[in-house]
């Protein structure tokens, strides 16, 4: 177990004993990952903030359900976040089509190409079916390995690989079709 994961385990045990500082520390360590996952799955900052609240409240109420044999604390938290996101998407309160525009960068000229790429890829990811979207978010955006993603999604590693393969092929085809031959990344960079 890496030092990072063992530290998370230690914090969780201290939280179970009523250690307020341990709870604050774990929140600061894992908040960004939970927020990013929820944002990348839904495209909504408001939903992502709601999910962060729900995840850490759930940690207070159900932290004892964490089983180190089944995965790391980060996977445990993302698993809770995934459940909340899927429920929200199922209720269609946070429609992917109503995705908010990303925050405008200060340096518009130099980041215009980047912003175009980001917007295009984000839209393509959000257009994926949920079960394929989540493997792209975990493996490519959060850079988890297959085993960690499988722990979070509670599915076999082979399922993660096959879904990621299909999802990336679909993303490539969609981005390619909108830029006639390439994904548009090289074209965007050349325009600068």
């Amino acid at each position, binding site marked *: 177990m890496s030092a990072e994961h063992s530290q998370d385990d230690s914090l969780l045990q201290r939280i179970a004993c*009523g250690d*307020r500082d341990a*709870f*604050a520390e774990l*929140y*600061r360590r894992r*908040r*960004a990952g939970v*927020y*990013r996952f929820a*944002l*990348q799955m839904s495209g909504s900052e408001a939903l*992502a*903030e709601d999910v*962060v*609240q729900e995840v*850490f*409240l759930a940690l*207070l*109420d159900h932290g004892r359900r964490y089983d180190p044999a089944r995965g790391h604390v980060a996977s445990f938290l993302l698993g809770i976040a995934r459940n909340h996101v899927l429920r929200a998407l199922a209720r269609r309160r946070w429609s992917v089509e109503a995705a908010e525009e*990303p925050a405008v960068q200060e340096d518009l000229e130099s980041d215009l190409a*980047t912003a175009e*790429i*980001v917007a*295009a*890829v*984000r839209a393509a*990811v959000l257009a994926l079916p949920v079960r394929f979207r989540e493997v*792209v978010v975990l*493996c*490519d*955006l*959060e*850079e988890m*390995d*297959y085993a960690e993603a499988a722990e979070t999604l509670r599915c076999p590693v082979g399922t993660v*690989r096959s879904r*990621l*393969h299909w999802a*990336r092929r679909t*993303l*490539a085809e969609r*981005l*390619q079709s909108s830029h006639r031959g*390439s*994904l548009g*990344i*090289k074209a965007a960079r050349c325009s600068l």
Partner: protein
Amino acid sequence: MKCREFEAMVVDLARERGLDEAARSRAIAHAETCLKCAHRLELERELTEALHTLAASEASPHAPPEEEAALLAAFDRRQEAKAAHNHAAARWTWAFASIAAAAIVGVTAIWFLRAPQLAPTKVVAVHVPEPVVASVPAPASRVMPPSRQLRAAAHRAQPRQRKNAPETRHKPAGKFYPLLPMPSNEGLKGAPIVRVEMPAIVLASYGWRLSPEQVTSRVRADIVLDADTGMARAIRFVNDWR
């Protein structure tokens, strides 16, 4: 390497994860000879770069300051609720423990008040008459004679007395039966005789067979003790025992 095999590896190759060096080299070599797979790999690499760009744009989301404060406040509320619950639970635990202890004490007291079936043997009297010991061995069956037979034997052995006369109530009922093999009556002259009242089950240790009713009864008898060793040598049942 065939194109199908390359297709299965292209994602890991583009992500540069999950492939050992040998597999990576074979895949690269195939892409250098197959235009279709080379184009496929180029697309996957571009997609990987695009996804990294997307991830980098969302790498450091700023948390609203009130978010952490709200979560810590929720933490404090839950700790207070847990402490209150534990206090109430402890009070109930003490109450149940007290009731259980009182019940155990009560049941134990009731059990002790109900006297056990077998009281210890008690010595009723000690005297040293001249014993009359049977010169024949104990009956082969070593079955304890029923009380009415003892009474009949005592009646034949003793002069007729009026019923309920006090002096008849505890008269011995007949002869002495050996408890241990006795080659002769030597050593029994002047041997102490102890009148005892004891659980009939004691006789079972001397080989006496008892009926189920006799097992739980008590016996009043005269015991001849060996003058040297103090061991019980013979027994004579006293009538009117129960």
